[in-house]
């Protein structure tokens, strides 16, 4: 277990655990806003960016950030419209991003881009990541009242003086930023899953919002912690798949233990 003490690996682990808390919080609001799947599409939008970064020989995360945020703006625009047309456009964007990404990312990098890998993190990368995570958590905390009102009823929120459109954009941007932080070790295919799964676990276990937010964040942190341990034991799994397997196991346990809810 000597890898545990190497600073660059230590940075990665601490950052992954902090990322887990942010993912749990963002996922909780994503679940309540019923936009988890749209969020999953967002994570795939990183792929063409990673591919372009390889072509241009720049840091893959820079490329990912560029296409992620462009994609976020696209989804924000689409959210304003409803109906089948939106759904099919999101589906098309999803497929196109995956196809283009797979085509232009060098094949020896593709699996890592899709599923993540054990990256050593530099001190600079670590500090940047920590900054992003604290920003996400602080922003969600600051916006929580507006988020709650606008997800409950956009009309009630608007009458109260909340700019619902802007809140939706802020939330999507925070969502993308969370994906970006998780991208390195979770990969584009799995980064979204750490936003989805812990929130689903939290929802199974609680009925009150404060408990829900805490439960999702705890489930997320447990998934990452035990996922990284599982990956250390069986390195061939990779960190992303290991974390997702632990999160899925938690979800299965929550199905047995889950609280009884109205109409269910």
């Amino acid at each position, binding site marked *: 277990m000597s890898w545990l003490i190497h600073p660059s690996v230590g940075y990665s682990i601490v950052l992954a655990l902090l990322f887990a808390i942010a993912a749990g919080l963002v996922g909780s609001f994503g679940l309540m806003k019923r936009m988890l799947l749209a969020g999953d599409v967002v994570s795939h939008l990183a792929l063409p960016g990673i591919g372009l970064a390889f072509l241009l020989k720049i840091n893959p995360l820079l490329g990912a950030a560029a296409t992620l945020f462009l994609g976020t703006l696209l989804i924000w625009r689409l959210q304003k419209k409803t109906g089948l047309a939106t759904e099919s456009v999101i589906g098309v964007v999803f497929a196109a991003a995956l196809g283009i990404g797979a085509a232009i990312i060098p094949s020896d990098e593709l699996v890592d881009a899709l599923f993540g890998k054990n990256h050593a993190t530099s001190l600079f990368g670590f500090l940047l990541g920590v900054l992003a995570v604290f920003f996400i958590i602080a922003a969600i905390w600051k916006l929580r009242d507006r988020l709650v009102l606008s997800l409950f009823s956009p009309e009630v929120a608007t*009458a109260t003086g909340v700019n619902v459109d802007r809140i939706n954009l802020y939330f999507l941007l925070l969502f993308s930023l969370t994906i970006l932080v998780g991208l390195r070790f979770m990969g584009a295919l799995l980064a979204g899953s750490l936003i989805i799964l812990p929130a689903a676990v939290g*929802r199974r276990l609680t009925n009150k919002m404060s408990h829900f937010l805490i439960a999702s964040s705890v489930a997320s942190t447990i998934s990452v912690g035990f996922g990284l341990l599982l990956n250390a034991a069986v390195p061939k799994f990779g960190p992303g798949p290991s974390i997702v397997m632990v999160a899925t196991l938690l979800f299965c346990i929550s199905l047995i233990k889950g609280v009884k809810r109205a109409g269910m």
Partner: protein
Amino acid sequence: MQELAKTILSVKDLTVDLDGRSILSGLSFELHEQEMLAIIGPNGAGKTVLLRTLLHMLPYQGEISWMENARIGYVPQRVAADRQLPLSASDLLNAKAHFLKLSQADIERVTSVADLTLELLNANMGILSGGQFQKVLIALALLGQPNVILFDEPTASLDELTQERVYELLHRLKEEQGITVVLVSHDLSVVYRYATMVLCIGKGKPCFGPPKEVLTPEALEALYSAPPKYYQHLREHHGL
């Protein structure tokens, strides 16, 4: 009296087109302090669209001007988010109070007006009955001392006794606290009893005026193209 009352809302030549379809066109009316305006019309006439437009949530042409210090409370017809959210009434009230920087005393005041018990406040919204859910929506709208409240079909899906209580509460708010009420309703007996002004939208030209002048049998016939009773029946059975 009417001339002296302050104008809360003035709408001039309002036109709303959505997805290339004309929903409202050339609508003009005024709302004065302490009035209770009932908006009536068949389904699909654009009543909810009108309320949403008044909140500036939809694109429109024409003019909508609210009194400068208008504080609006909104009671939605149905809530878009599903009822399975991990939210309690107190989560919602706290969110709004916190956003508007109101105190715990403000929350207690509206919960007592809407008759919300501690048990209801802490229960998950998903297990509340239609009437209890409505009470929460009303308490939420009253928080922040609005001077005008928009009610989108406040009693749809409630039993008659509960409906009666909601209208009594609306009436009381108007009389005792001087709150101006805008109400979308399908229940013409309620409109006759409580509304001071009626706006009908639907087929043909919109009409606006006191209930006794506007709600003639001929006008209703033209508005709904079918007797209102029959329409009520359809609504109940098909959940339209």
